[in-house]
């Protein structure tokens, strides 16, 4: 059974329909938000109240003021007992895009993220070409794939080396857990033969900000990723060559040759980073098994899949389950560790967005939904993106009412996380990849073969973790680089085949339709799930809705009272610092948050109502409306 909470059944032919006899299938019964209740009763409660410390991280360092997290730490139990995740900025792309030529969405939505502008341009192209009824030639699909491989090599190194890495560096750990630094001095690295660091202390030194070898190399590898993007897109960031029906880049033999040269440089870095994060995870877990609970939450993941098979992709919604199933990284829903579906229509059907605790008005009170079904007749909710209206209204600013500019997306009314590791997880559980020499999905993990470069050819094995926690998110992201490099290898070899056969077209012609169309682009950002839902009529956008991985991950409580993924991951995180209460830095809470690679800083349109900008920043606003 695909859906547990929404009354959606499937007939014998697999067609979805609303269960008969349910009067209001999408009714919402609002519940009290779940959260920590300070004990006031019971023996001794008033005599010995818990040692609580409220801790507002505002802004969470390194995310440009767009994310604030309010937590309550119980210093007696040494764990975080409460959390609220707050997106602090309003973005408004959906409002900006109304009434525009749909092609504008490619360039404008690109600015939704300054880290990964290419993914927004791409998913926007996918939505528009679906609406226009066109499909890129095979090489156009591959060029898009290759550009996105490059973009991931901008994204992942910077997270692992510059954002998450320092949390495990000597400079931080020596303050929070000096005993671990002592232990690291006498602990040999299990993968010293790959990364070259003899002891864990050497490795942790290499994670130090600004001076560490890994930090500096990671910064340099973002350059390689950018060059790879430029080879395919002509320009990066914010490529202007992604168009409906392919790319407008002038591609030549040298484009592919130069891309391949850069990809070769990546292989060794992938091997080193996987080995590095294996050693980090194993060291911390061996030192204290409680690290397994840092950032832990149920394994509920939602992924939309990325990297199309040029022989399967036809851009239609009608066939999205077929071409989605041929993606290199599979779409999927994982609930409690079990793969529930890989069908994009199921994923799309189950999506709802709620604003009970967000600074928006509920659009469903303004009459019936625009659409009761998707274009194939599958039921969709009034809270679905195709029915959503963005109506900003900052009000009721407290945790019981509204506290975030992020809304609360849910699938089948369940709290879902998305991530780079998520697409590996779905692919591994589905145990299928196209026949290729570099990548194998084994059902319990991924086997990745990386060719020889400076280091010898190496087989890497990523195993599905027992627990979805901070260390495993980071380890997964490290292996994701190898996963991505393997896909890049496959795609470039396929691109050479098409090139040799003379099938060199990378785009197709089109006309902007004037009749009513609805469409959706399914793709993934560095952090996972990405959709753009489009409704157009008369050659103009009627409604455009962007939903990003951080929209899911940073979400506030939903109307059913359930906390969002950041909030879930923080509550129950143990405080493992070995210092006195007064010196607790909250590093484990920060590790929990940062393991999601929160990406929220945003352009823009932060207006207090009197035209006063509190702070101007530009660009990445993945989670923001």
């Amino acid at each position, binding site marked *: 059974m695909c859906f547990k909470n929404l009354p959606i059944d499937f007939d014998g032919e697999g067609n979805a329909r609303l269960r008969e006899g349910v009067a209001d299938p999408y009714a919402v019964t609002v519940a009290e938000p779940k959260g920590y209740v300070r004990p006031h009763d019971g023996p001794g409660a008033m005599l010995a109240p818990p040692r609580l410390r409220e801790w507002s991280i505002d802004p969470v*360092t*390194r*995310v*440009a003021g767009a994310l604030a997290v309010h937590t309550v730490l119980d210093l007696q139990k040494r764990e975080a007992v409460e959390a609220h995740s707050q997106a602090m900025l309003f973005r*408004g792309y959906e409002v*900006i895009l109304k009434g525009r030529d749909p092609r504008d969405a490619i360039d404008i939505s690109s*600015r939704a*993220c*300054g*880290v990964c502008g290419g993914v927004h341009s791409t998913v926007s192209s996918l939505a528009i070409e679906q609406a226009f009824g066109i499909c890129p030639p095979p090489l156009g699909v591959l060029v898009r794939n290759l550009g996105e491989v490059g973009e991931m090599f901008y994204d992942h190194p*910077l997270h692992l080396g*510059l*954002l998450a890495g*320092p949390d495990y560096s000597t400079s931080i750990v020596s303050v929070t857990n000096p005993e671990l630094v002592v232990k690291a001095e006498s602990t040999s690295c299990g993968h010293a033969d790959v990364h070259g660091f003899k002891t864990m202390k050497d490795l942790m030194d290499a994670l130090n*900000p*600004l*001076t560490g070898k890994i930090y500096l190399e990671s*910064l340099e590898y*973002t*350059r390689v990723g*950018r060059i790879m993007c430029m080879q395919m897109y002509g320009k990066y*960031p*914010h490529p202007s060559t992604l168009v409906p029906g392919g790319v407008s880049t002038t591609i030549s033999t040298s484009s592919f040759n130069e891309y391949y040269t850069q990809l070769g440089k990546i292989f060794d870095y992938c091997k080193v980073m996987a080995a590095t994060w294996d050693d980090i995870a194993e060291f911390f877990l061996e030192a204290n098994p409680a690290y397994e609970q840092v950032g832990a939450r149920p394994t509920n993941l939602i992924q939309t899949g990325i990297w199309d098979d040029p022989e399967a992709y036809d851009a239609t919604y009608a066939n999205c389950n077929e071409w989605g199933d041929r993606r290199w990284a599979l779409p999927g829903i994982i609930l409690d560790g079990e793969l529930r579906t890989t069908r994009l229509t199921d994923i799309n059907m189950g999506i709802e967005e709620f604003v009970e605790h967000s600074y928006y008005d509920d659009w469903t009170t303004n009459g019936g939904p625009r659409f009761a079904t998707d274009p194939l007749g599958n039921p969709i909710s009034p809270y679905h993106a195709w029915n959503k209206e963005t109506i900003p209204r900052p009000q009721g600013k407290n945790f019981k009412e509204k506290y975030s500019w992020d809304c609360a997306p849910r699938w089948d009314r369940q709290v879902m996380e998305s991530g780079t590791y998520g697409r590996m997880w779905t692919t591994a559980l589905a145990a299928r990849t196209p026949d290729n020499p570099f990548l194998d999905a084994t059902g319990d993990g991924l086997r990745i073969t990386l060719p020889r470069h400076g280091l010898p050819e190496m087989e890497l094995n990523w195993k599905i973790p027992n627990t979805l926690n901070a260390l495993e998110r980071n380890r997964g992201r490290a292996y994701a680089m190898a996963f991505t490099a393997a896909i890049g290898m496959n795609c470039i070899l396929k691109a050479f085949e098409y090139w040799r056969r003379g099938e060199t077209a990378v785009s197709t012609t089109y006309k902007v339709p004037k009749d009513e169309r609805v469409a959706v682009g399914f793709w993934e950002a560095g952090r996972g799930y990405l959709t753009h839902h489009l409704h157009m009529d008369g050659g103009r956008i009627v409604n455009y809705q962007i939903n990003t991985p951080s929209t899911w991950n940073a979400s506030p409580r939903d109307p059913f009272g359930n906390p969002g993924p950041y909030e879930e991951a923080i509550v129950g995180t143990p405080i493992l610092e070995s210092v006195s209460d007064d010196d607790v830095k909250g590093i484990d809470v920060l590790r929990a948050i940062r393991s999601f690679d929160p*990406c929220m*800083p945003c*352009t*823009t*349109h932060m*207006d207090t109502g009197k*035209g006063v*900008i509190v702070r*101007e*920043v*530009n*660009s*990445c606003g993945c989670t923001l409306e």
Partner: protein
Amino acid sequence: MLVGGIGLPWLRDLDFGTQFIVRFQHEPWPAGVLLEDLSYAAHRVMHRLQEIEPAKVVLVGAMPRDVDPPGTIRRYTLDLTPPPPEEVHERLTEAVGGIIDLDHTLAVVRHWHAFPADTTVIEVEPADRSFGLGFSDPVERAVQQVLRLVRDEVGATELLA
């Protein structure tokens, strides 16, 4: 020589750097003068400077310092002494998250010594920081003066229309 604009798209005066480049990049400039939009993350600007190794850099942008009236132009030769490492790290971590910010760029690029000794910054104090296109009146009035200053910097005063 590189003239680089740093702006925040669609934020009226704050997009000054980008729009300055768009407006004047097709005007006559002396050979060897390159005008580029550098409105992207600080380390990417550093990588770009390391690629082209310009002998001189002129950075143009609008920065709200809130000490001068709107439209005020500030020109200064950049002191190449980098800020403290902690500040560089904080600014870089914001930059890698996609934040475009002139001060982030100045900090990160100085830390890795990627600016040439001859680096000048020309800032305009913005008036209108809201969403939209076009400059406010005080900033629009400053455009020609900024152009003169930039041409001065690159030795192109005689090319002024």
